[in-house]
Each structure stands twice: as structure tokens, then as C-alpha cells.
């Protein structure tokens, strides 16, 4: 498939601080790519570089097969949606949508047509003559998306567009953005720190840390085969349980626990040595089911957090805290004994020092 955006050996430093280092990224035509990471990881910086709002220190940016490294933002064929919406407050919604086009010398008829089309897609037609101050947060963000839409561009850039909205609206607009992507088929790059947004929206997720991409893969692959301990910890809620120990002859030894590793999908081949073993709370079986698992342990329930759909348990296993996700209908009280178990193919092993997947 054709590449829509290519980032080649991108470096960016502010003085002595290196924000992005030798970063390479290919985004396919029509792909929805999410840049995910905690604050300060460089994800918004990267987006600003792609938009041309920041000068890069080295490397190239290609959009739609053209080298746009030195192009002005408006000439790159992109539209951008900001966290604070960045609507022009003194103009009506129509004014906001048409200002850039007017400035680019687009004919009046064409502007009207594009604005109406965008308004229709985003269902903001009744709002066209209002000022941004008279709109709700969700409506404002829709207008902001509309401003990108009227530009008739191939690439949409979203910079944490839903962060300023409350939880309910965020979920609604998330669905709308996904729908919009399905309708338009544009390439979209979406920056967020919210893993749910990332998992639900993305074709591929790029998890960033310290200016580098930790892993770039489809949501499921990231969830099932995290490339390193950072990614494993970042994705999933509650976080993956980790045991510190050693791989020795097909077993993982951690204190008095010996976890058989038969069935684990090794990255290269089995290696002995110090390592982390991670297992997600939702992959730990409890009660009768646990009896069928290759690894079993007896635990005591310490803490119960009912969420309705699920219940989260913090259990004590040989002196360690282990989080377990069980069905929400199970009645269980702190202090109760519980059998736990899991299969090695669900576990994740990471090398002790460089924390890469084994």
C-alpha cells in the first residue's frame, strides 16, 4: 500500500535537550495511527513536527510522496485538531470554517459548498451562525474537526482532541471520530495519553517513551505481545502483575514459586537468566477453573474492588500483591482463601536489565 506519511531519521532538540532521536515512522494511506505515551514522551512534539509547527533538527518528513520538511504547515496538505479547540472566538462557526479558505483564495461558492458538506457530516448545521462561546465542549470540538475537514486534505492530525471533555462526551466523540474515519478514509494521526482511546481507535499504535517509539503495532499485538516491560505496564488496567526472578531450565523461579514455562512462545529461543514475569489480572483464573491451569497457587484475598461488570481483587500470594480480575457477580470477602492459576502462554517474560521481551 502507498505510504501517506514517512518520517525518516527525525531528530529534534531544544538546545541540549534531545526530544526526538532518530525516529522513523511510516504511515499507510488511510491508516489510523495513534501516538500513545505519558506526558513528556514527545508524542505531541512529533505531531507538531509533522504539521510543520516545529522546525526539526535533522531528518525528513514526507507527506503524500512529497518531501515537506521545509514546507509551511498550510502547504503540507494537513488539517489539525487541537486539545483546546483553538477556535477563533470572535468569529461564528461559519467564519471559523471558512476563514482559512477565504484566505487561500477559494471561490465563495466553493467555500459555501465545503462548509455545508462539513457541517452536514459533523451535524453542526444548526450551529453555523453561533459563536464558539455559545457552544458546548463537544460542539466546539466538532467545529474544530470541521475546520480540518473543509481543507479537503488527505491527512488529519489530532492533538489530544478529547482531553478537555468529560468522560461521557469523550466516549461519544470517540465513536464519532471512528465513524468519521470509516466514512472519509483519510490518514489520521492521533495523539493521546488515554490507552482506551488508543486501543479503540487505532489501526496501529505507536507507544512512545523518551522521544523514541517503543513499539509500533496493531492494538491486539501490543496487548498480547508487548515488546518490552514498559509497554506491558502501560497498556492494560489494572496493570500487569510482575514477578522478579530467574529463568532456569524451563521454569521461572521467584522465591518459593516455581512457574513452569512449557507452552510459552519464546521470542528467540529459551534462555536462562534473570528476568521479569508478567501476567495480566484478567488472565489469572480463580476458583475451580484455576485447577486446570499449569501453574497454581493458593492466595488470600486482601482487598475487593467491585466495578459492577468485573470485580478486582488484590490477593496475597506468598507475600506478594497480585491483582486478579474476576466476574462481577462473584461474592467474595477480604480474608477469604482463593486458588489462583494461569497458563504460561498468557504470561510475558522480559529480560531483567534491558527489559525486552524474551
Amino acid at each position, binding site marked *: 500500500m502507498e505510504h501517506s506519511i514517512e518520517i525518516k531519521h527525525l531528530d529534534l532538540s531544544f538546545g541540549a535537550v534531545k526530544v526526538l532521536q532518530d525516529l522513523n515512522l511510516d504511515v499507510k494511506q488511510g491508516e489510523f495511527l495513534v501516538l500513545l505515551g505519558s506526558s513528556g514522551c514527545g508524542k505531541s512534539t512529533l505531531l*507538531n513536527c509533522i*504539521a*510543520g*509547527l516545529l522546525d526539526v533538527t535533522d531528518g525528513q518528513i514526507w507527506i503524500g510522496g512529497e518531501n515537506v520538511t521545509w514546507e*509551511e*504547515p*498550510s*502547504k503540507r496538505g*494537513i*488539517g*489539525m485538531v*487541537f*486539545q*483546546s*479547540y*483553538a*477556535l*477563533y*472566538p*470572535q468569529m461564528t462557526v461559519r467564519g471559523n470554517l471558512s*476563514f*482559512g479558505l477565504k*484566505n*487561500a483564495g477559494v471561490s465563495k461558492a466553493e467555500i459555501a459548498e465545503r462548509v455545508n458538506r462539513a457541517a452536514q457530516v459533523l451535524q453542526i448545521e444548526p450551529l453555523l451562525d453561533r459563536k464558539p*462561546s455559545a457552544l458546548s465542549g463537544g460542539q466546539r470540538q466538532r467545529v474544530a474537526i470541521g*475546520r480540518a475537514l473543509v*481543507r479537503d486534505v488527505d491527512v488529519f492530525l489530532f*492533538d489530544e482532541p478529547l482531553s478537555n471533555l468529560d468522560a461521557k462526551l469523550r466516549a461519544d466523540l470517540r465513536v464519532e471520530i471512528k465513524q468519521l474515519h470509516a466514512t472519509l478514509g483519510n490518514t489520521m494521526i492521533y495523539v493521546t495519553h488515554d490507552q482506551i482511546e488508543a486501543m479503540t481507535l487505532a489501526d496501529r499504535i505507536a507507544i512512545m517513551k523518551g522521544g523514541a517509539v517503543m513499539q509500533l503495532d496493531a492494538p491486539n499485538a501490543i496487548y498480547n505481545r508487548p515488546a518490552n516491560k514498559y509497554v506491558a505496564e502501560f497498556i492494560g488496567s489494572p496493570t500487569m502483575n510482575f514477578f522478579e526472578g530467574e529463568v532456569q531450565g524451563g521454569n521461572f523461579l521467584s522465591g518459593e514459586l516455581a512457574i513452569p514455562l512449557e507452552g510459552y512462545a519464546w521470542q528467540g529461543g529459551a534462555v536462562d537468566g534473570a528476568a521479569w514475569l508478567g501476567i495480566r489480572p484478567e488472565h489469572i483464573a480463580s476458583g475451580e477453573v484455576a485447577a486446570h491451569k499449569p501453574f497454581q497457587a493458593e492466595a488470600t484475598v486482601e482487598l475487593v474492588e467491585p466495578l459492577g461488570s468485573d470485580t478486582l481483587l488484590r490477593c496475597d500470594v506468598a507475600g506478594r500483591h497480585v491483582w486478579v480480575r474476576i466476574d462481577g457477580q462473584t461474592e467474595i470477602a477480604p480474608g477469604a482463601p482463593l486458588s489462583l492459576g494461569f497458563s504460561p502462554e498468557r504470561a510475558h517474560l522480559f529480560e531483567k536489565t534491558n527489559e525486552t521481551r524474551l
Partner: protein
Amino acid sequence: MAAARPLGLFRNINAKIAAIPMVLTALVVFTGGTIWTVVYSFTNSKLLPREKFVGFQQYERLWGTERWNVAIENLLIYGACMVVFSLVIGFVLAALLDQKIRFENTFRTILLYPFALSFIVTGLVWQWLLNPDFGIQSVIRALGWESFDFDPLYNADIVIYGVLIAGLWQGTGLVMCLMLAGLRGIDQEIWKAARVDGIPMWKTYIFIVIPMIRPVFITTLVIIASGIVRLYDLIVAQTGGGPGIASDVPAKYVYDYMFQGQNLGQGFAASTMMLLAVLVVIIPWAYLEFGGKKRV
């Protein structure tokens, strides 16, 4: 919170004690003093205030005096020029300083330092700079332009512009600072959005940024305006109101009649006119600033 609870003189007694100076100032000095002056402007007080009311006589005399009319005309010229030039220059300088330039602090420090000076100091420096025998005029003539004429302080027709130069020198830094604070308050993403939209910088300023910092413009305008009405020290130091009465202003007229001309009634009437002028500026502003909020 506290205000909603049962009241009594002794509730919050410490807070009330702490507020006594404010209450006295507000009631006795500001309200009482203003009313007193307005009332006595209708008397024919001379050396001492007295209660012989003469209606609008003082005002008729005031507007019939050439000196007062000159003072008003000067204030209007000075005021109009001051507002326009200090807003325009102040904004342009602020916009230049907002371009992520080097030495921003140095430039800002230089542009603002005159504001720290007394009007007396400003007036005397510019009196010296505009001195026709030694100042700018003589220096330029010495360079070979013999016919160069620039002696505003000795030319009754343009003396007020000489004062204006000094006033702008002292006051523009403040306007620049206020505007810069306003510009810094603009969401950076607005600038990014405008760049993505391909809007040139000057258009972004005119169509987006200036409308956004309109409140800053209005507040600045009020500050400049209330400073203009008070214009006194600068005139005293720079021209002493001269040549003749050519650079007189209302505040000086008031002072001279009250404390030197022994004609209190004239002073009261003139100061009441100044109050009126300020109210004309303040009331619409207060209405916009505080009264208008409910509707938005």
C-alpha cells in the same frame, strides 16, 4: 459564605475593625470630598470657602475664560494623540517583543524604565533636550542644516506636542507591557491553528488576536485616559504652562486658582468639570466591564 449567616454588628468584628480605614476613605475622603467640592463649586468662595450660592456663575465664568478654553483644547489634543499613539506604538512594540526574540528582557527593561521616573524628571529632561539653544535643534543645525526649526517649548502653537513627546516617552512602555501580557495570555494553539490554516501573521493579528485581547485594550484605554486627565506634573516641570498660557491644562488651572489665585470657587468649578470628564470615560467602561457581564 459568612454573609449568608445571621447578622449582627459584632459578627466578624475584627474584619470590620480592619475595614475602618477603607470605610473612612471611601465615605469621608472620596465620597464626602467629591460632594463637598461639587457643592462649593456653586458658591462664590474666594480666599476661603463660604456658603454664598451663586448658581452656575462660576461655570459661566470658567467657560468664558480664555485660559480654561486653552487648557481644555490642550487636553483634547494631548489626550487624543496620547491614546492613539501610545496604543498603536505600544501594541506594535509588544507584537515585536512577542516574536520569541533574543534579549527580550533587555528590550523590555529599556522600554519600561521611563515609567519608573517621576513626571518632574521626565519633564526636565525633555525641557533640556528640546532646548533650542543647546538641544536637538542646535545639534542638527550644527550638522549643517542651518534652517532646521524645532523648538516646540517656545512656540505657543506646538508646545503641547512637545509635552506629548515627553508623555509618550514615559507612558508607552506601560502600554507595551500591558499589551504584551495580553498577547502572552493568548492560547498558543490559536497561533498554530492559524498557521495550519495558512493565515499570514499580520492577518492573524488583525482579525484574530486583536479582537481576542479587546478587554486588554479597553482596560489600557481607561488607564491612559485617567492618566491624561491628571496631566499636571509634566506640564509644571516641562513648560510651567507656557509660553504664556499656551500649554495650560485643567489640572494646572485648578491648582493655580485654588492655591495661588485665591479664587476657590473657580478651582472647584474647574475640578468638577474634570470629574465630569472622567465620569464620561468611566461609566461606559464600568457598564461594559461589570454591567454587561450578566448578559453574556
